[in-house]
């Protein structure tokens, strides 16, 4: 399984903090994103209408990244700490 996390505004909008996705269903982060867009009716608009950053195994990545069973992928808005 791939553990998918959402944070902050994005998690509120989706009404979801965490999701498990079958690792055999998605090969990489592009496919995972496509999977999420199709996951629920309103998710497509929410996920594509704003800048979502992503982290794979707790490190931010920009490009498409290969995924394997046990990986953790997080989506979140631009950070505002400090």
């Amino acid at each position, binding site marked *: 399984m791939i553990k998918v*996390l959402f*944070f*902050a*505004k994005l998690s*509120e909008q989706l009404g979801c903090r965490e999701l498990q996705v079958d690792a055999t269903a998605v090969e990489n982060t592009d496919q995972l994103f496509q999977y999420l867009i199709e996951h629920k009716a309103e998710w497509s608009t929410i996920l594509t209408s704003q800048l979502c950053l992503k*982290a794979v195994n*707790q*490190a*931010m990545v920009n490009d498409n990244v290969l995924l394997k069973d046990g990986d953790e992928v*997080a989506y*979140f*808005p*631009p*950070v*505002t*700490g*400090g």
Partner: protein
Amino acid sequence: MISVQEQDFNQQEEYDRLKCKTSVGAIVTFTGLVRDINNGQSVSDLSLEHYPGMTEKCLIDIVEQAKQRWNIIESTVIHRVGHLAISDQIVFVGIASQHRGDAFAACEFIMDYLKTQAPFWKKETMSNGETQWVDAREVDQDALSKWAVK
């Protein structure tokens, strides 16, 4: 020392920890506080969400980058999470070095990277009771440009 914590921190304690070696000639500290006004709106309090695990990794990585660029004798990064009120301390970055140039640069570098890389998110409660997630500021992204390798 790196810490992500709910509890408050103490300026004097953190300063004393940085001051512990006799080779230290310069200490720079930065403290971020909850302001009463943000983007012209009156704020009553703040809550800070983070990504446990990644925040710590991210802060360790930023401090490591700073250590590769400047001479640092001691360093401290503390970031609070959870519920905060006006004038509460949010973040502390302290650097002890032999010379001031290193301490200033490393401290500001860490803050600039933390602001754009570390997974923290602020949600404000306004004085009228409404809540809103704070938007990322372009000026914080721009601040990174001064650290580009020339």
